[in-house]
């Protein structure tokens, strides 16, 4: 990746996703990812997106059971409203705030 590259958010093989805190179970993709596309974290680990994940959206890094917390910034940003699998797109359709 080019350090000052501006648009070099991804390479041909995978799209960069940023996990802010080691405890997080989601990461944010910096470019659009297709279903089946590869997502790469800065530690070199990779996973496959189960659905399209638009730029800036979250991808699950591991399974999150319904009712379990979704963690970003090392903090709870909401809870899963359905069972979420690793690689799933995570947004308003499968998570919400604690009521």
């Amino acid at each position, binding site marked *: *990746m*080019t*350090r*000052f*590259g*501006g*648009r*070099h*958010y991804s390479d041909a093989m995978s799209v*960069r996703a*940023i996990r*802010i805190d080691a405890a997080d179970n989601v990461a*944010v993709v*910096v470019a659009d990812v297709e279903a089946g596309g590869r997502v790469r974290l800065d530690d070199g680990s990779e996973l496959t997106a189960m659905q399209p994940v*638009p*730029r*800036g*959206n*979250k991808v699950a890094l591991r399974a999150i059971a319904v009712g379990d917390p*979704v963690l*970003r*910034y090392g*903090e*709870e*940003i*909401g809870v899963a409203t359905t069972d979420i699998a690793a690689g799933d797109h*995570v*947004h*308003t359709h499968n*998570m*919400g*705030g*604690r*009521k």
Partner: protein
Amino acid sequence: MSDEFTFDGWRRPDGRIGIRNHCLVLATVVCAAGVVREVGRRLADVVAVEHPHGCGRGGPDIGLQLKTLAGLVRNPNIGSAILVGLGCEPVSVGLLSAVIGETGKPLKGIVIQDAGGSGKTADQVEAMAREMLAELAEMPRSPGTAADLTLALECGGSDTFSGMTANPAVGKAVDRLVAMGGTAILSETTEMIGALGPLLRRAANDEIAAQLKKMVDEQEAVTRKILGDFADRALAPGNVESGLSTIAEKSLGCIAKGGSTPVREVLAYAQRPSKQGLVVMDTPGYDAESMTGMAAAGAQMIAFTTGRGSPAGFPAVPVVKVSSNSEIYGRMTGDIDVDAGRVLSGVTLDEVSEEILSLLLRVARGEKTKAEVNRQDVFAIAQTHQAL
């Protein structure tokens, strides 16, 4: 850097220092808006502020409006002011002057019903303002340092990257400003809902922690009352489109603007800080109202992060715009001062924060921000429990 963070401003009689030396022409009531607007058209150098308030509301709102408008007049970036009223309103020239109190700044007032109508009032205000502008141009400068600065923090049109790029970059600049003795105000209580845990861990003492908890809990209760089951999605459509799923996710990104130093004080809307360092103000999440509260508290500049892109500036208080992504910077380069989106392509937060801090210094030394050049002022006063 602290030795180098010096600028020449205008020392006011209350000891605070302005980084601008503006003549403010201020409507006390909506009915005076036309006269103020006309004076603004005639004299490009005055800061003309109108608003839809000053009448037609009960005590709590009128009190908030008086406190806020008085604070704006006292803001150190204001060198002199002319109040324009109608004559029958509760927020009258006389009452507002009394709330402003003695500032040592030239302050004049005029009442449209006494002055013979809108045309004659505009002519008289224009003449007064020309005289004030000439006096301001002669006013000597005084040296100031970072310890004289109060920086307001704002985000508008947040996106999912705001909490990873622009907000933490501003937060690191805030940490350095605070280390040099400066003050920064973190506001937007709506955007602290769901982020109470990390905020409480940063409270300087138990009393401040209790105040923060009460403030955020009350705002959450109001939000739940208004939005019901949708309270967890107290987000603008653009926030959701960008990938933010809940208010907690937005909030955790928003509070990153405050950096990492302890919260020294919790302020009511438009209340002047009594402590240096990072302070928190209870304001709506609505940008324009939040900026107004912090300017009324004396902030001389505003750092405003944006993901979706906002052109908003503020009257008399320079607004520095920081984008959270490079795409919006590219589309709105004419409105945005710093592109923190480069963090996504490998530039470090430290590098961007250095750029922000050096721009804040240049702005304190007189460089105009893009919002200042573009004259994109927005102004709105918080209303009691009617706006989120």
